[in-house]
């Protein structure tokens, strides 16, 4: 039985109508393409709606910048395994970080800054930069004295626990005297170039919520230069 085919149709359309096998194949391809496009749109929305890395999530030493780290890390957990102090964890769905990526939280357990950096050596992909050989050059974040109101040293006491526990004591954080109406204060002052962001100061801060915290560098530090808005008067 031959089908009636209108005369004014293109050659391509004609060949599809005349050839049911091909018609079937085209149907299948378009159906799959439809599923793929629809699925990809939904999945992309899901991926982008995953929470961004929270500020308290710190990466192991030598970690690439977050965006590159996210693509380079293959979530194998070899760094976690080789951490002698078991501070590293792999993110579950409950953690505000991409699933399966390694992190530590300074307030719970800070990085002990092993001189042989076993976590970096374990990384098979270079997500933890193998060029990092001196742990003092690591950049996991930077300590910032975020709360001047509650810090005991600002109240005139000499707690200074953050200065005393720092593994790079006297260099990364030191006491700077300031004279004000309360008298002579000894203020813990971080040198951002020396601080590795290991988090020991945050861990040991004696208050129930730490007044000194390790933040990712882009959150914790300003950058010199000019901001056009700063000089504009509206």
């Amino acid at each position, binding site marked *: 039985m031959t089908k009636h085919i209108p005369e004014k149709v293109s050659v391509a359309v004609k060949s599809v109508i005349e050839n049911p096998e091909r018609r079937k194949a085209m149907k*299948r391809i378009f159906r*799959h393409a439809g*599923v*793929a496009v629809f*699925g*990809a749109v939904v*999945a*992309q929305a*899901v*991926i*982008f709606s*995953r929470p961004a890395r929270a500020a308290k999530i710190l990466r192991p030493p030598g970690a690439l910048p977050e*965006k*590159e780290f*996210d*693509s*380079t*890390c*293959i*979530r*194998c*957990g*070899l760094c976690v*395994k*080789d951490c002698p102090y078991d501070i590293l*964890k*792999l993110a*579950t*769905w*409950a953690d505000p970080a*991409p*699933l*399966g990526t390694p992190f530590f939280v300074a307030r719970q357990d800070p990085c002990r800054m092993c001189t042989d950096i076993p976590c970096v050596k*374990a990384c*098979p*992909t*270079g*997500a933890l930069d193998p060029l990092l050989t001196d742990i003092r050059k690591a950049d996991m974040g930077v300590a910032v004295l975020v709360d001047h109101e509650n810090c005991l040293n600002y109240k005139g006491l000499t707690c200074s626990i953050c200065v005393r526990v720092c593994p790079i004591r006297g260099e990364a954080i030191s006491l700077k005297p300031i004279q004000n109406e309360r008298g002579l204060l000894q203020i813990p002052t971080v040198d951002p170039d020396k601080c590795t962001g290991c988090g020991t100061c945050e861990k040991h801060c004696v208050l129930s919520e730490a007044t000194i915290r390790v933040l990712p560098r882009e959150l914790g530090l300003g950058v010199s230069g000019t901001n056009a808005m700063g000089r504009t008067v509206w």
Partner: protein
Amino acid sequence: MANLFRRIVSYLKSHPWLLMRRTLQILIVLAFVIDIPEVGRIAHGNLSSSLWFWNVPLTDPFVLLQSWLAGAPLAKVALIGAAIVAGFYAFFGGRIYCSWVCPINMLTDAAYWLRQKFKIKGNLTMSQDLRSVLLVMALVLSVITGTLAWEIINPITLLQREIMWTSAVGLTFLSALFLFDFLVTRRGWCGHLCPVGAFYRWIGHYGRLRVMAVKTNACSSCTDCIKVCPEPHVLAPVVAQKAMAVTDSDCTRCGACLDKCGNGALSMKLDLSRGNSFRGIPIVKD
């Protein structure tokens, strides 16, 4: 209790392939978890990337491909590991991973077993091509989003992490997967959806380890092998005596057909004959 134990032992005795498969699967899970006294741990890491016997790196080529597509440079150790894994499956057959290594297989096999026990007939029909669609989606999304798209939900490494760190956050997803296979679709996950299986099928398209019909005249055409096969279509040409070997890359080499066949018509062989290399035995169509 002793009776149940005896029944399990006799079942495994009559199903040697199943016994071997489960033993290997469980040993692989344990290798990542158990510290052997005086020796330590045999495997470090997880199925994404691992270090075996303190020297041999193994990397999942699918995870590495996603990472590369997401924009990461390729590192030497990971590449060596991926080459070893890809080479093995390319030679022997890709979906060996699915039935001999993947821990999710134990979960879905359990769901299928329950499905039969409860005689659940309802079945949501899905195209088996869906897994290829998901595979392409995972790769394209890795390029678009700059993250390892499939690793956000990959139940294989999820299950392994749950076991290794005794976490339970992913259990919701894993139990959903179990219920899906149990109640919704026959062999739903492994047979229709999992892009990891689709990827390994693609790598091991010409795998040489094959189920072969060694004695075709011994076959009584009872089709029992097809009934137990997780990918039944792969056996059809052999049972119809149109082919001497299972050449379809969907075959997971699980050996369920070998355990089932009482006539000894089938066997698992390394098929190196040049006559049918890269083409398979021509199937006569009527």
